[in-house]
């Protein structure tokens, strides 16, 4: 069970991969997205995006993102951020 995750900035496509879970810093609180999440659209605040590659692993990769929004649909999670590093 994998979640398709894309991180896009105006300058380039930063990530496009299959992951287990992503925790997104939403404006109204962080939320985790797993495969099969209900369709959702949320703006994001400046903060860290946490990527969990596998179910058991706790070694999360974090990417700092600023400004933008996240969209979850049946194709997966897309995060559009103004800056990502």
């Amino acid at each position, binding site marked *: 069970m994998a979640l398709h995750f*894309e991180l896009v900035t105006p300058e380039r496509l930063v990530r496009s991969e299959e992951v287990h879970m992503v925790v997104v810093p939403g*404006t109204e609180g962080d939320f985790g997205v797993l495969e099969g999440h209900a*369709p959702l659209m949320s703006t994001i605040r400046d903060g860290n995006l946490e990527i969990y590659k596998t179910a058991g692993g706790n070694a999360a990769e974090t990417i700092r993102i600023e400004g933008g929004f996240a969209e979850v649909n049946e194709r997966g999670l897309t995060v559009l951020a103004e800056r990502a590093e």
Partner: protein
Amino acid sequence: MASLKALKVRINSVKSTQKITKAMKMVAAAKLRRAQEAAEAGRPYAQRLEAVVASLASKVAIGPGSSPLLAGTGKDQVHLFVVATSDKGLAGAFNTNIARLARRRADELIAQGKTVKFYTIGRKGQAVLNRQFRSSMVHGIEPGDLGKLRFADARGYADDLIARFEAGEFDVAHLFYATFKSVLTQEPTEQQIIPVKIPAVPAGEAAVSAVTEYEPSEEEILDDLLGRNVAVQLFRAMRENAASEQGSKMTAMDNATRNAGDLIKRLNIQYNRQRQAAITTELVEIISGAEAL
């Protein structure tokens, strides 16, 4: 008739010009590849954002409460032309073509009794438009090397534009730039950026997003995105411009190199003819001198 020496000097000068144009063509070719990649890398973001804005805007009713960036000011008296060109010349008709399109549209609107103001990004476009519309120039930005432009720069210009819009300086903003089609063709393009033109939503998409949850509300997300959208459109236009500029420059420099080659060929023929003529004259002098003895 130019002397042999003068011809030689001329040939050498054309040769060094050719070397320069050839080098510039190579540089443009290398930069073009990078600019093209950058323009393509930025496309997914712009497309996603456009799709989301379209699907949200179709759901939110446009009323007195909605953002003026979406609904407009209710008038279309004052138009602002954001003309994006480059700071440097030597790129064929690149800058002229964009400025010409802007000028033609401005003339049309002025004929209809509207007011047109100009906001230029790029020194070259400003220079051309200054001749005719000096009194309507609002602001000029010199972005420097278009290839090195970051999103933060576009964001800055967009914030300035939105501030001016909110201060009531204009009702409608149009953006002018050159779309990169191929190395040989760059198309001057006009795009309305304020208020946002809502693209049609593909039939299938609307049904899917109908069940989507929104955090915060649809209206708030839309407001947030509309401001962002102006910056993204500006950034995309400038990325397209960067690729177009290099494409145009490459073609222009290729032509210049070829012209220089033709000129060198012609000058060489002239040089050889004159050398022959000089030798013949000398021989005739020697022979007639010998015969006289």
